[in-house]
């Protein structure tokens, strides 16, 4: 009986200690999350788009896309979290020597994900991260020369793993150089170079159905009835970014994003995007002492 009471007491003490430990981990995580440098990013993105919709044409259309880019970016030595959106307008032609057709339209992209930097690489120059990424590309496009097939609503949503490489570096000491009469001075500064590739594990696409007709004789037809929703295809993307940290806690960010996507239905849609962006990062939380110069 005595032994039983002792065992129960030990168990109770153990579970209390465990609960306490859990609580500690939780509050430590909360503190880390709170302290993690977080930015609101606003910028411009210029892209070159390449599009082929075999439902209407075997030819590739190419042209520019101009977009407004906004995002939330949160990153420290342990983790990266992001959400971004671009909303843009594209104007693509088929580069035909004989005849030029034009697809134009509005497109919207969303992506979010988390990436954890591997413990083994945290102290090395290049840090490697692994995580997940969810992204979506939606576009509404028109091409008046293609009669009733001249409207396309396409949407691809992809979920998958991502890997990243991070290379933060800095100039620790002030740097002075005299070039003739000009005195060049560079203050200590932090920089970061990063690269991320997002792989598609699961992709869902929706686009015009087989007949590719939106103007149908039945006025009661639900417009979604003329669209196909398919599981398959892919949306593969990568991002290379260079961040230049300012002394007031904000930063400038230059990125290059690449995307290649394909639907899986009978008539395939291929889209590739090469995007170049210039962004201003506005720090949202308090700047830690060790971040300052």
């Amino acid at each position, binding site marked *: 009986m005595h032994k039983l009471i002792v065992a129960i007491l030990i168990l109770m003490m153990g579970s209390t200690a465990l609960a306490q430990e859990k609580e500690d981990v939780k509050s430590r995580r909360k503190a880390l999350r709170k302290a993690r440098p977080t930015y609101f990013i606003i910028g411009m993105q210029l892209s070159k788009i390449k599009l082929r919709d075999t439902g209407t044409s075997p030819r590739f259309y190419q042209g520019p896309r101009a977009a407004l880019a906004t995002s939330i970016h949160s990153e420290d030595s342990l983790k990266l979290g992001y959400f971004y959106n671009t909303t843009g307008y594209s104007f693509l032609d088929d580069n035909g020597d004989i*005849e030029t057709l034009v697809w134009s339209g509005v497109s919207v992209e969303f992506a979010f994900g988390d990436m954890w930097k591997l413990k083994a690489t945290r102290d090395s120059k290049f840090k490697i991260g692994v995580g997940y990424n969810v992204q979506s590309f939606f576009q509404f496009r028109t091409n008046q020369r293609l009669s009733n097939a001249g409207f396309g609503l396409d949407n691809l949503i992809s979920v998958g793993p991502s890997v990243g490489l991070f290379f933060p570096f800095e100039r620790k000491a002030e740097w002075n150089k005299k070039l003739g009469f000009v005195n060049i001075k560079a203050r200590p500064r932090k920089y970061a170079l990063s690269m991320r590739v997002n792989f598609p594990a699961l992709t869902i696409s929706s686009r015009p159905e087989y007949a590719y007709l939106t103007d149908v004789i039945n006025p009661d037809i639900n417009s979604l009835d003329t669209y196909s929703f398919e599981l398959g295809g892919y949306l593969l993307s990568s991002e290379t970014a260079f961040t230049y940290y300012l002394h007031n806690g904000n930063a400038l960010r230059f990125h290059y994003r690449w995307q290649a996507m394909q639907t899986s239905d009978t008539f395939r849609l291929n889209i590739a995007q090469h995007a170049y962006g210039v962004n201003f990062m506005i720090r949202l939380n308090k700047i830690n002492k060790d971040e300052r110069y």
Partner: protein
Amino acid sequence: MKGTSWLLLLILLIGCEDALFEEEKADNPVSNFEHLWEAANERYSFFELKGIDWEEYYRVNRPRVNNSMSDIELFDRLAEMLNSLRDGHVNLISPFNISRFDIDFLGADNFEWRIIKENYIGDDYLITGPFSHDFLADGEVGYIRYSSFQSPISNFDMAFVLSRYRNTKGLIIDLRENGGGSVNNIYRLLNSFQQEPVFLYTSQIKSGPGHEEFTTAADVFTEPELPFYERPIVVLTDRQSYSASSIFTLGARSMPNMTVIGDTTGGGLGLPNGGQLPNGWTYRFSITRTIDPQGNNFENGVPPDIVSIMTDEERINGVDRVIEDAVEFLTN
């Protein structure tokens, strides 16, 4: 070193869509011919109805196409193949020519606007939106000319016209030489001619490459809306009443207060969609079908309830036989 390897691997994964996407089709006469033949084979709606052996067209025409042909020779060959579909909704469009199947020659000319203006409605007829209209037969009949379904009909247009002719014995809606347009305008008109929903026809869209692979038939009904005109209405048609005009006429045959007088319409009950060839030329052909409540497919022309065709003598004498027959039908 480890980091550098990763960097190299990641760089390899950037910007390589050319390795992922299928190559663009070759642009030569043979590949253009093959592409067009196949697109029609997999999407055109009326091979079975028209008894066209499309494989036979391939066997006959493929040997006549070679990669040393000029653009004009290729165009002629492809146009000839498409015109064998005998369909006004089928075109091949190049920078120098547009192929077409001329529905005008399916029947005699059965309409002369000048005769109507000179001898029936005068030059003081009203133009309300897309409608040219006036009274006939001493005010007993209202005559409404609707020349194109591309012209939108507003609520005001409908309210004004139907109010003006509310006390007539009947209405004439003249769709002769109306080559079609937007399907929406069909319902804008038909919805005002009965207070109860009327089953007009069924509609199907191609859903796969098989010649008879269509979506399940969807029933199309009118959706009555104010204002109403439920007295007898005569719809005038000729061989140039095409596409949306034919669909309207098909619907009119199901409406209890509507009668079709004139010639068989030009047909074109299938809606066309478009595409492009490897060389950049575009094409279009029908990819839907519309069937009447009795199961008839009048793609080649919707027949009238009462046949009425102008003779040359009547034309010379300024008599529109079709209007005369319509007025007699409505007033007697």
